[in-house]
Structures are given as C-alpha cells and as structure tokens.
C-alpha cells in the first residue's frame, strides 16, 4: 500500500485508529460470545493474534506463488491450519480455556478480521510490515475483547479475573453475562469510542476492509457493494 509509511505505523494503526472491532466492526461473533469473563477474552484475543500473525507471515511469503483466482481457498486453508495448531496447544496446556472457548476456537477460521487482513494487507505487502500489521490488529482485537470482558465480568458476575469484588459481588447484574448483555455492552463501548474520538459513528465498511472483498465480484468494476444494493450496510 503506502511505501513511505514507517513500520511503527503498521503496528500502531490496529491498536486504536483502525481497531478491528470498535472501528472497523469486524469479528463481532467472538467479541460477543467469549467475553463473559476477562480471562476468556484475553485467551481468545491472544489465540486470534497468533493465527493472525502466522497467517499474515505465510501469506505474504507466498503472495507471488498463489494464483489470484484461487487465493481465497488458499488463504482459508492456511488459516485453518494455524487454527488447528493453536487448538492443539490450548488443549494440551490450557484445558480449561480450551473448554470455555469451545466451538469459537474452531470458528477463528472464519473470523473476518483474519481473512480481511490477508486479502487487504498481507497479500500485497512485504513480510515485515505484514507481521507487524497482524500483531497490531491482533493486539487491538485483544484489547477490545479485554474491555468487553472486564465490563461484563465486573457488572455481571461481580468479579474480575475470578477475584470477587466487594459490593458488586453481592448482587451482580446477571443480565450482563447473558447474550442480551453482550449486545448492550458492545453498543455502549462503540458509542463511547465514537464520543471520545469525536467521530461520526461508523455506518459502513469500505471495500478496503470488507472481508468479502476477496469473493465479491463488484470490486473494481464500479458496481457498488452488492450488500449495499440490497439494503445492507456491512456483510460478512
């Protein structure tokens, strides 16, 4: 993309300015599903970061070799391979985390952040920027999950990392750890980020960050986004 951008910018952009969850609105499913506890949120974030860094590394190495027409299945297989790897590691060394993440560990494969970065960044850039981009995006994702997980655990269970907090643990608001609470907290966190950044709320995702850009036929043909045509604003 931009040749003159310093390497540190590739790393830091994922943390705040282009935070994958709170700004680009990608990877919503794990953000909502595994954030009932702060420790789960961090585990999921780091597992995703690992897959993201590794897949970005491999894809940027192979970018000249993978034919354009079949790049999507290739990316998915590379990602799925690393997901299998990390689930083995977690199953062996952190069985309790493995249990509580459950099916969402497998579903890292279809996390649109990873496919989105592979398509938008790693397949067009050199190795080092790609790794840094993956690391920054992964840590940004982890940070967003950590904020969500902390809020939901503190209010919903009255504890933080399993440590009981005074006052709150007497009558925790269970709703926060239920599915409805997940939607609510995420909505509030995105609103708060908008407020702090003093920015108009994100209404749509550009083709640049759209995870389906790889499969989408409309890109570059000036046809507009197919999901827009049908009244959607983002689509996975």
């Amino acid at each position, binding site marked *: 993309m931009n040749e003159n951008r310093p390497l540190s910018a590739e790393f830091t952009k994922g943390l705040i300015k282009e935070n994958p969850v709170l700004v680009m*609105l*990608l990877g*919503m*499913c*794990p953000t*909502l*599903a595994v954030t009932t506890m702060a420790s789960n949120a961090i585990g999921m974030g780091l597992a995703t970061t690992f897959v993201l860094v590794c897949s970005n590394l491999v894809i940027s190495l192979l970018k000249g070799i993978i034919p354009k027409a079949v790049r*999507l*299945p290739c990316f*998915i*297989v590379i990602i*799925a*391979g690393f*997901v*299998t790897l990390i*689930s*083995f590691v977690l199953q062996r060394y952190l069985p309790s985390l493995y249990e509580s993440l459950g*099916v969402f560990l*497998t*579903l890292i*494969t*279809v*996390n*649109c952040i990873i*496919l989105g970065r592979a398509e938008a960044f790693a397949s067009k850039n050199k190795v080092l920027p790609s790794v840094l981009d993956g690391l920054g995006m992964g840590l940004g994702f982890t940070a967003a999950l950590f904020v969500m997980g902390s809020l939901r655990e503190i209010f919903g269970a009255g504890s933080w990392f399993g440590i009981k907090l005074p006052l709150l643990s007497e009558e925790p608001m269970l*709703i926060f750890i*239920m*599915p*409805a*609470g*997940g*939607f*609510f907290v*995420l*909505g*509030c966190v*995105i*609103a*708060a980020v*908008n*407020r702090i950044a003093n920015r*108009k*709320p*994100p*209404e749509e995702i550009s083709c640049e960050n759209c*995870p*389906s850009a790889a*499969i*989408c*036929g409309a890109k570059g043909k000036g046809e507009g986004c*197919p*999901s827009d*045509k*049908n*009244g*959607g*604003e*983002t*689509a*996975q």
Partner: protein
Amino acid sequence: MKEAILIIVTAVFVNNVVLSQFMGICAFLGVSKQLKSSVGMGGAVIFVMVCAAACTYPVYMLLERFEITYLRTVAFILVIAMFVQLIEIVMKKTMPPLYNALGVYLPLITTNCAVLGVTVANIDEGYSFGHSIANAFGTGLAFTLALVLFSGVRARIADSDIPETFKGVPATLIAAAIVSLSFMGFAGMAF
C-alpha cells in the same frame, strides 16, 4: 421423527443461533436493513446449511476411518467454500430466477461462521445423519427468523430520534440486545 422436531424447535427458539449463540452476527447486522434482503439471505443460508451438513457428515466419517479427525476444521471449511461456489455456478446455469433472488448472498456465506458452526456442532453433539440435517435446517430457520424479526425493529430505529453518539451501529446493537432479551423467555423450554 419426534426427536428431529424437538431438535428443530430447540434450534429455532431456545438456542437461537444469532441471538443466544452469537454466530453470523456480521450478516445479521449487515443484511437486516430490509425485509426483502432478510428473507433472501435467510433462504440462502438455510439452503447452504442443509447442503453443508449433508456433505460434511460423510467427510467426517471418512476422516474418522483414517483416524485424522484433527483435520476436521480444514476439511469442513474447504467443503463449505467449494460447495458455495458450486451452488452458485449450478444455480446460475439451471435456475436463473432463484439465482437472481439468492445469488448475491451466496459469496457472503462462505465466511458466515454459523455455517461452519453448525457442521462442527453436529459432530460434537454426536447427531445421526437425519438429526444433523434437522439441526442444520432448524439453525437456518433460526437465522432467518432473527433476521426477519430484526428487520422490523430496524425500520423503527430509522424513524426515531437517537442521540448523536449512538446513531448507526451502537443503536442497532442495543436494539439487538432487546430482541435477544425477548428470546430469553424461551429458555425455560429447554428439552
């Protein structure tokens, strides 16, 4: 048969795939703006889910035979990706009206985590072939129901006066929280 019906009811109401399991949120938030696109996307998802469940079941049996079940994730996602492409090509050639109605949604389904999720859940729950199909159909139906219900809610949000910071996605998410809350009423029905 009775069990299959129970699986479908559980999937649609008690364990709604979008509102209580958080799968396919991106598509849920993206395509639910209008009733018409909700129904189209829902139809495409039901179709792909049932077909994917039917395809991955024998694939898993094959993996089990050679004791390489750890390749499940890789195999399933490839089958789903291939399958979606295949459906698109076949549909375009043989059923143009259906393609016009559902076609645009098909590419978006490959990375919909609900599809991979349902095939993995079928294996984890140890469902038979028939029950896998029932579960896939129920999950697809649940996805459609959530989309259709939510498109109605969103039409109301568009007309209301919302604080500037909450406009757009935050308001949508909070509305989703309320819809999800209503589905908690079914929790007592767990079979």
